[in-house]
């Protein structure tokens, strides 16, 4: 049930985050090699060694593969949750707070594969694995679902395509300042409107970029994190959210899906909300998800995201600056940094709160609100605070 009960509040911390950076072209490397690079980087950055890790959470490669690859001697907790990576954080926080383990390695390796880009097949190794035989075109399941609900959003509120374009442009403008990002060439509205249509009403630039690369994190008790090398980032609250009618074509409405559960529960458990956050991250696997997060999180009312963006548009920076001070997806989001299925937003928030965000640093940032995932079976959110 929606509840303010949150016994783990601020008692579990993200002690560090690391990234390999992302490429929008096939690289001559395996998915495991990216996981290894990010995992070893974050363990070292925190001043830890393999023997200090007693929990592993990741999707692909599996926790077992990562343990073997990195020679982590013993773990007492591991999990292979589905993406997005809020699932991984929720599992790690619960495992640490309950005492199932003390120090969790969380990782996510993004990899260009045939399911997200046909050009992955230029690398023969990427065509191996389970067959992708699907049900044919007569469905709005899978990746088509967000396109279908984008059409509904346009129908209900008379939203023009340019409103979707603002999200893509905002993210690209932020990615220009992010050396880890795959796409760093500034984008204009003309660029957006002339992009190739993939599934009307969404075009190529409405969809996240398939990339090679990885992020990794260390999750431990706040007490222990204070003894490690980097400033701890406390998990104020974390939640997942899902409703019963979670299939794409049976989802009740734009105002009744996983987003609302996340917002209601995360808000009840957190010490701050939109008024008190210095950083805001909203999932942008598809542009309509971001517009709906803005509305569902309460930054503005239903159908008002376009007007909200216009009134918070920083023309000089060609990006959103809410109330002149809160950026949206300061790293460039999945649309421009790369499709990290959630890890990029969390890594960027951690770096911002640690003061390690380089040219993108938001001065004095102390709080971050993250609303991740989509409508159907993958909505999730976190609130993070600097210690």
């Amino acid at each position, binding site marked *: 049930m929606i509840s303010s009960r949150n016994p783990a509040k601020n008692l579990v911390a993200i002690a560090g985050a690391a990234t390999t950076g992302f490429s929008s072209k096939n690289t001559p490397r395996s998915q495991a090699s990216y996981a290894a690079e990010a995992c070893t980087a974050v363990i070292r950055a925190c001043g830890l060694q393999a023997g200090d890790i007693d929990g592993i959470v990741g999707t692909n490669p599996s926790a077992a593969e990562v343990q073997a690859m990195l020679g982590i001697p013993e773990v007492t907790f591991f999990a292979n949750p589905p993406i997005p990576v809020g699932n991984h954080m929720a599992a790690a926080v619960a495992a640490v707070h309950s005492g199932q383990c003390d120090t969790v390695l969380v990782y996510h390796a993004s990899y260009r594969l045939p399911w997200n880009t046909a050009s992955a097949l230029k690398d023969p190794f990427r065509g191996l694995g389970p067959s992708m035989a*699907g049900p*044919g075109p*007569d*469905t709005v399941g899978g990746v088509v679902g967000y396109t279908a609900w984008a*059409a509904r959003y346009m*129908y209900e509120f008379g939203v023009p395509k340019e409103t979707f374009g603002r999200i893509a442009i905002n993210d690209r403008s932020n990615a220009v300042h992010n050396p880890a990002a795959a796409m760093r060439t500034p984008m204009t509205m003309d660029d957006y409107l002339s992009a190739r249509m993939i599934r009307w009403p969404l075009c190529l630039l409405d969809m996240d970029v398939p990339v090679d690369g990885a992020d990794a994190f260390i999750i431990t008790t706040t007490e222990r994190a204070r003894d490690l090398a980097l400033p701890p980032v406390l998990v104020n609250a974390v939640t997942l959210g899902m409703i*019963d009618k979670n*299939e794409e074509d*049976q989802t009740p409405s734009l105002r009744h899906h996983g987003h609302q559960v996340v917002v209601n529960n995360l808000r009840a458990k957190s010490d701050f909300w939109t008024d008190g956050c210095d950083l805001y991250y909203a999932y942008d696997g598809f542009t309509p998800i971001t517009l709906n997060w803005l509305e569902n999180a309460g930054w503005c009312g239903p159908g008002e995201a376009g007007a909200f963006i216009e009134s918070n548009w920083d023309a000089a920076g060609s990006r959103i600056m809410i109330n002149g001070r809160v950026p949206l997806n300061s790293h460039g989001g999945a649309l421009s940094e790369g499709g990290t299925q959630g890890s990029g937003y969390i890594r960027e928030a951690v770096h911002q709160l640690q003061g390690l965000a380089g040219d993108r640093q938001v001065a004095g940032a102390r709080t971050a609100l993250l609303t991740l995932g989509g409508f159907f079976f993958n909505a999730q959110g976190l609130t993070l605070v600097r210690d």
Partner: protein
Amino acid sequence: MPDLITDLITDAELVRRFPGQPLSHDSAAHYRGRLARKLLINRCAACGTWHHAPQPICPACWSTDVVPTEVAGTGTIHLAVFLHQGPPAEGVDYSTPYPVVTVELDEQPGLRFTGTVVGSPNEAVAIGKRVTLDWIDRAGTPVPAFRLVESSAS
């Protein structure tokens, strides 16, 4: 629908006729119905609630007496997409974007079924339009589709 001749089709043959579809003991009756060009949607015999996709239990009352039941096939377009690219399928080349609509069926608010639209140019296909069930053939297997109802207000 025990009177359907298609009940005589074996499970193995059903799997062969519907490659890539989510066939199981729960959905087999729905797909057998397709072979007879009947759109069967699960309805609870205990409480009358419809649900889709086919499940082994009524999500409203937990009765396991769910009965694949033919629907009228009439409804209103709730979602609409036009695929400029997509998975390979016989008779679909995407040079004309392929319409896919989710239709809210008249039997119950929120009960929806997804398929393509036949018999109208894409410009006429839009959310809010009234449709009725039709069928297309793909590799010799019937596929449920929708046709705009002519009197539909735009």
